[in-house]
């Protein structure tokens, strides 16, 4: 990950789950598959360290983009969640 301008890359930490920025098409696909609207997604703040790292890779991330988070789960090995980037 090219994240030089970030002092500490939180995504490399063991306890921080994977964050992936979805393209608009991917986001739409996810939403239609789940039958949800954007406003029903859980939120993540733009100021979140995870988003900061993604921004250093993808450039500025607008509000309303969708982030895919893959985390280790005790019950289901791996679990995929989606979050909507919001102000803050």
């Amino acid at each position: 990950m090219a994240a030089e301008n970030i002092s500490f890359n939180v995504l490399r930490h063991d306890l921080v789950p994977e964050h992936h920025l979805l393209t608009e098409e991917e986001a739409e696909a996810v939403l239609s598959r789940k039958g949800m609207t954007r406003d029903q997604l859980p939120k993540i703040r733009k100021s979140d360290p995870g988003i900061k790292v993604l921004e250093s890779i993808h450039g500025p991330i607008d509000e309303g983009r969708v982030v895919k988070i893959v985390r280790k789960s005790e019950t289901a090995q791996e679990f995929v969640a989606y979050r909507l980037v919001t102000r803050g």
Partner: protein
Amino acid sequence: MTARGITKRIGSIKFSCVSPDEIRRMSATKIITADTYDDEGYPIEMGLMDPHMGVIEPGLRCKTCGCKVDECPGHFGHIDLAMPVIHVGFIKDIKMLLESTCCKCGRLMLSEDQVKARRESMERMEELGGGTIDVKNFSKETAKDASGKGVCPYCGAEQIRIKLDKPTTFREVEDNHKLTAKEVRERLERIPDEDLVTLGIDPSTCRPEWMVLTALAVPPVTVRPSITLDSGDRSEDDLTHKLVDVLRINQRLRENRDAGAPQLIVEDLWELLQYHVTTYFDNQTSGIPPARHRSGRPLKTLAQRLKGKEGRFRSNLSGKRVNFSARTVISPDPLLSINEVGVPVFAARELTVPVHVNEHNIAQIREMVARGPQPVPEKPYVPGVNYVIRSDGRKIRVTDRNAADVAEGLDIDYTVERQLIDGDVVLFNRQPSLHRMSMMAHRVRIMEGKTFRFNLCVCPPYNADFDGDEMNLHVLQSDEARAEARILMQVQENILSPRYGGPIIGAIHDHITGAYFLTHNNPRFDRFEAMNILFKLDDIKVPEPLIDEKGEPYWTGKQLFSVVLPEDFRTTFKANICQSCKPCQKENCPYDAYVKIRDGQLLCGTIDVKGIGNSKGKILDRIARDYGSDRAAKFINQVTRLALGALMNHGFSTGIGDEDIPEEAALQISNNTQDCIDKVTDLVASYQDGTLEQMPGRSLRETLEVSVMGVLANARDEAGKIAGKHLGMNNPAVIMAKAGARGSMLNLSQMAGCVGQQAVRGERLSRGYWDRTLPHFEKGDLGAYARGFCSNSYKSGLSPTEFFFHAMGGREGLVDTAVRTSRSGYMQRRLVSALEDLKLTSDGTVRNTVGTVVQFRYGEDGVDPARTVRGKAIDLDDLFAEVLGDQADELLHVETSDIGGDYGTLEKDEMEYTEDEESEEFDDLDMDYESGGE
């Protein structure tokens, strides 16, 4: 739905400010006089008790709507205030608005670009599902950004900083000029609508100047009814008193102002009016003295009616009292089924179920009504009827006198409130209701006596005992409720706990001892004994007896136990009495601890807690999972009766004599303990002369403490071991401990052997006097006795110092429990209020009430924990065993004992552990503090 009388449905609710205009429009009358009643006792028109505002006296009619007492909802009136006053409830918002807008032109002090950006952000936020709280926080930020400017960017006016003198006065900092409410109102009026939107206020429903009152809404008299005392005097509500104050001052202020009184007097009166209006809203506003009643009691005004534990919300809305409920002491009845509850006749006669009369049941119901509310003769119990509700909604109380007439007049479409009968579905509950099993549906059994009775197996889910506990019972009133309760809440549906996927309802205490006697080493029962045990069970097939040497028929215990198992039941596990010897001899276990069931026949092994106990019972667990809840309920009912039968056949009792140990054993224990104490003395000596070898990472002192604790713990264990050896498996106390019925080997070794080291915070006792715990010891004594070691047993009796140390250790346990319960209760409350409105939707997501996703899949795997095998979605070992049969054990080298492992160990056992710890040190006080808590 309309059939139920629902004609309109609430789409949404919006809370907003009310404009003075609207106050006047909705007002039924203007209030101008502070007098309430005239000399004849009639309410004065345009007074506070004006009959236009509703009626409180029966017989009178409302002058606005013409309705009688319970029909008229009441109507608001209004007071026109002579001068505007600030509403305390909005003081923070007013301050925010004054600070963020220009004092001259009223514009929001942000540049146009900033405003535009803010507005866009806000719209975006709403679009992306930001809640009202987000909007509020964002608006606050906007206001903060706009405030504190020196010059207005629009008109260039210089800004004067404003300070709020609590509770309701604004002051300009520079020249100490007090802003009057009128000035505040004028400034708020100047704020343009567009700027309000930016600040998160909807100007169409709420203009900020409405936060400064020019008219005061007067609540209907029905909200503040006056009470007529026995002496005939009227006593007015606190709100009325307060309104009288407001009116009086308002009147004086108006007169003075109109008469052109000096500014100072007018201002004083204005301030007084502000005080009265403020206390009318909230009499606990900080910074001003609360308004008091003549007697000196503070008045209960609007905010006080709503706030706090005794307020409308917590006391009247969340804590509503209900009809059709009963509460009494509980007592046990092992002969009831687990899903029954014994209801005393006295309660059953009061509690009713509504029955709709139709052409099929009218004859039957007529007969019931004719019996009246107190049918004679009293025995046997037959239900009577307390009320008959006619089809027009009139409710007729049935009495012995009118019963015959009412029965005669009974017609189709009437509803009859029938007394309880056997089989009615009721909810049964014990506080604190900590989990869903605290409230379960039971079937009614009308019984003699005055207590609620239920099966002992249902004690653990309610956490009930019979030392005076009381429980509540609620009778379900509609078919929907009954269906729901029957499907979701009945006791058998809750056998498997969602906490750990194992049974929470199962055999306890004597049931387990009984099962042990029935099956351990396969005893023989002759015809008399076997029938005595079996006759308590219904719906069983008596197995073919075996024939003994003398030609007499007999049954084995394992045969009798197999009677209650499902026919094709199979399982293998190790019982609680297992000594975990290596290698396991399986079927040839010397302790009869290897349980093997094939085709519903118990082939070998002893049934104890691991078989049928609550939270550990594997047989129970399997039956509930594989054969359904009804079969599990039947199994529990039968197995407990069987066990009790076996126990009664055998006879069982325990007493202090069970802890008797032979003299040589006692000598052995005291020698061993003495050895250990000597070892401690040696350790202390080596510590003092510096020869003690320090452990890595520990100070010398810590090293000493650790080794001493080790030696003394060993002393207790050794004492326990010696005592255990002499007590043997024929000792009732040992049987209970080993089978898992009650008590532990630790309890026994403390009673028979040695109580052991007492500890506070996990360390040996060290507090009290300087360098010593008690004046009985020398200063600096680090020996075993000086630091809380009890070498005596409970039975032999503690020495005075030991007793004191024991109390020290016990006190810690008590404090811990007290702290733990209050803290975990608070934590639970916080958790519940955070999670209460989440629900699982049909697509598997967990969502809140707005529809926002909280979890994309329930528990991330979508599995109901109540249907798991100790938390795992599927039990592979079990599946293999099912497919491969006995081969599975050999093929997979599956340690069958570990199937179904120790689920429930996580939480339940931890609880048991602490429980044990407490009772181990505080057995005798156990009862005292338990009942003290009730």
